[in-house]
């Protein structure tokens, strides 16, 4: 004779049909005679039935694509090493700090460049005049103004 405790430990398997025939027959005999185990079996069977018939829900069609896109976006952010973050931050700080100093220097540099370009131009023009004068002297066409 099976005890109620023994029977109740097997009711889940009985409700799922996962029990051998001999064992099932012994359980059935007990269930016919024991109201408490019968009530337990009824509830167990009902829960198994409800679970088996419970609907399975699906998320929206683009769910997987959205998840993977987000995964890749997060992964891209995470692949930046702490050293790179520090380097970028330091370069930003340096740029912000150096701009007020470098801007006037840049203007001075432009002025110098312009002056030098003007001087170069003046030198070119002067050398052209000298070369013209020399040509006239050598070919005898040069007549001093005061003569």
């Amino acid at each position: 004779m099976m005890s109620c405790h023994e029977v109740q430990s097997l009711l889940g398997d009985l409700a799922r049909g996962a029990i051998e025939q001999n064992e099932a027959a012994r359980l059935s005999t007990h269930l016919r005679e024991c109201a408490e185990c019968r009530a337990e079996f009824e509830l167990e069977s009902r829960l198994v039935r409800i679970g088996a018939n419970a609907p399975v829900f699906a998320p929206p069609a683009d769910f997987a694509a959205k998840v993977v896109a987000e995964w890749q976006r997060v992964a891209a952010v995470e692949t930046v090493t702490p050293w790179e973050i520090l380097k970028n931050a330091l370069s930003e700080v340096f740029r912000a700090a150096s701009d007020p100093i470098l801007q006037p220097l840049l203007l001075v540099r432009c002025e110098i460049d312009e002056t030098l370009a003007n001087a170069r131009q003046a030198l070119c023009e002067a050398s052209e005049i000298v070369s013209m004068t020399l040509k006239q002297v050598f070919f005898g066409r040069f007549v001093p103004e005061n003569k």
Partner: protein
Amino acid sequence: MHSDQELVEACCRGDRAAAEALVRRYQSVVYTLALRMLGDTQEAEDAAQTVFLNALRSLHLFRGGSSLKTWLYRITVNECSARTKLRKRFPRPASDDDPVASLPDQNRLASDLANDKEQETRNAVAALPESYRLAVILRYFEDLSYEETARALGISVDTVKVRLFRARAMLKTLLAEREDLRS
């Protein structure tokens, strides 16, 4: 069709197609459990997305000691439990547009289907305290074994058995009370 292990390895190498295949394989499982725990489609979708993002980021830690499905159940249970706790601490204001309100109300359905014992049992399950409800959902609705339920909940098999025993006792009491109210 790739095995779970092949998909996991490909995902660890950053393979986008493998990640999408993995999400597609388990999205219904995770989303359904999240919906059963949270009862709100939008929140269930958010939770499922977080579950998969956490899973994809931690796949290199997955050792294959349990099945991938059980591992995902574990992450889902943790995520949804955290959201439930947050919801209890910061309850949302009631609104006509609240999507929760638009879901089928278990109590309303019960009155409509007063003679339906299965519906009453479903309502009684929904009324169980969370730790017991979770054990029932995983064991009966998700059809997990005791061992899988234990892994998904992060508790021992004996604790699962105790919770299910108590849950059934509570269900019997709840169903008897409703029976008394009807008669």
